[in-house]
């Protein structure tokens, strides 16, 4: 990473923070919070596909499980929001450790199929387990007071808390990518046998990246459950796993800012197309096809190519 590159990413980061700081005064804040949660979800997913080359087709399992755990401890056990979110993160990380340990035993295309199948298993578990309330989900989750001080039922307060959580997660990912650990991950992505021959335990690195990614997905899932006061089967279903792939692909695989942009576009699109029912699926499918055939760099990837700097 050159100094000039860092400068560009610094400017881009400042623009992003400024945008999200001003946006709630012009745009419906709940929509923005949704975009932020999905942005973090997509960034965490991108950590795997973009920097380790692992396509997880089961990331919905972690988003949904964290949502259920956060919602359950907040509603039934009466935990404060910060503890509830931590519980969600922990649940997603433990689940990530179990699923990751199994899935990294296969490479490439099999990895994608394995994560998809294991996530489907989690889906059926959530469908049948009593505490998730099946089709109803966990409704009316209390938002509570953060650290006993900040009243999260106030929308703008909640918005800036969500923004802080998003930025924290984003910076963790940014730091990870640009650390020696991140360099090893990229080495494994480029040439796994070579990384192994250099003495790196590729499987351990992959598993650590997987758990980090799922923990951050858990952060997004737990936060989302508090924002919408709801944890439901939608978040565990495989369509959600597909959606996060779409966001990341559209924004730009392996770019720092791409997933945020992709999430924003996809959420906005769903918002406007919501009345059209199944057409949303058709449009999403069409975006997939167009992206794969002609637009593999994604929005931010193309932008980065224009200014010849990594973004």
């Amino acid at each position, binding site marked *: 990473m050159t100094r000039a590159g860092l400068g560009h990413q610094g400017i881009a980061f400042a623009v992003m923070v400024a945008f999200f700081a001003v946006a709630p005064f012009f745009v419906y804040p709940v929509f923005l919070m949704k975009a932020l949660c999905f942005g973090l979800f997509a960034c965490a997913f991108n950590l795997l*596909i973009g920097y380790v080359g692992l*396509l997880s*087709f089961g990331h919905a399992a972690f988003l949904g499980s964290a949502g259920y755990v956060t919602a359950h401890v907040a509603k039934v056990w009466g935990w404060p929001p910060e503890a509830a979110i931590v519980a969600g993160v922990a649940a997603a990380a433990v689940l990530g450790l179990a699923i990751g340990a*199994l*899935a990294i*035993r*296969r*490479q*490439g*295309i*099999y990895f*994608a*199929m*394995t994560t*998809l*199948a*294991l996530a*489907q*298993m989690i889906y*059926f*578990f959530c*469908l*049948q387990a009593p505490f998730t309330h099946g089709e109803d989900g966990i409704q009316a989750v209390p938002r509570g007071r953060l650290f006993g001080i900040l009243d999260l039922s106030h929308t703008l307060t909640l918005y800036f808390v969500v923004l802080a959580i998003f930025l924290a997660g984003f910076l963790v990912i940014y730091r990870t990518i640009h650390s020696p650990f991140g360099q090893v991950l990229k080495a494994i992505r480029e040439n796994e046998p070579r990384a192994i021959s250099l003495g790196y335990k590729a499987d351990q690195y992959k598993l650590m990246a997987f758990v980090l990614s799922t923990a951050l997905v858990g952060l997004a899932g737990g936060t989302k459950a508090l924002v919408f006061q709801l944890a439901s089967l939608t978040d565990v279903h*495989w369509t959600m796993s*597909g959606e996060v*792939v779409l966001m990341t*692909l559209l924004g730009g695989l392996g770019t720092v800012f791409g997933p945020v942009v992709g999430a924003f576009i996809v959420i906005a699109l769903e918002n406007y197309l919501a009345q059209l*029912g*199944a*057409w*949303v*699926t*058709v449009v*999403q*499918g*069409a*975006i*997939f*096809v167009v*992206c*794969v*055939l002609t637009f*593999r760099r994604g929005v931010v990837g193309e932008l980065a190519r224009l200014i010849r700097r990594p973004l």
Partner: protein
Amino acid sequence: MIPILGIPPQALFGQLLIGLINGSFYALLSLGLAVIFGLLNIINFTHGAQYMMGAFTAWFLLQYVGLGYWWALLIAPIAVGLFGILLERTMLKRLYQLDHLYGLLLTFGLALIIQGLFRNQYGSSGLPYAIPAQLQGGQNLGFMFLPNYRAWVIGFSLVVCLGTWYVVERTRLGSYLRAATENPTLVQAFGINVPRMITLTYGFGVGLAALAGVMAAPIYQVNPLMGGDLIIVVFAVVVIGGMGSIMGSIVTGFGLGVVEGLTKVFYPEASNTVIFVIMALVLLVKPAGLFGRAQ
């Protein structure tokens, strides 16, 4: 009648039969996936949607043209196979030089489009399709009642599976196919038209999915969403079996169907997840899959 392990035999054999039926579909679908993957190096996520299209083609033929089940069994695989060939020629062939993951993403997108379009047109409640007159009724075997149509589905899919195995493993055409799977460049150097072979192979795999769809139409209803969840189970079947061997796909498909059926008898809560649990166990013990070769 004597209960076996505390289960009445009617229930046991009934579920075993359902297991074999599901197993037939798993076998046909995972076989198609394996053949396609062997040559194209693409995991065909559209497989579930193409299975659904097979069922719908049968329904269209009956509804608008008046052609019954037997014609559908012939026409639907050809029609959907041609549609597959069109997809391969226009889209998939651009991806052969890229990472395999792009093939998965493209076919996933295509599956979303196809399923979305059918859902817009036909809702998600399902359309009935009658069992053909020749196969109505059933046989009383003494220990259970065997509906003729279900016997036919199991028998016919076995024949199709074994036929495919014979063509791939025992004929000259199959030897070209296997050679091209190993080293397409070399096979092309011998004057065999590999790109055409790839196209036809994709069409054939898709045709198998459509055939399974026609056979499924009278058992399950014709439903735009019928392939969506099934394909994930089939992926698990493929991970368990490994895609290296045709016979492996067939045995794994039928075997897992039976295991799933038995789970419904002994521990129904786990019947949805048993295949995924088996997949996790296989990954622990033999990561390459039961019949797969280590990469």
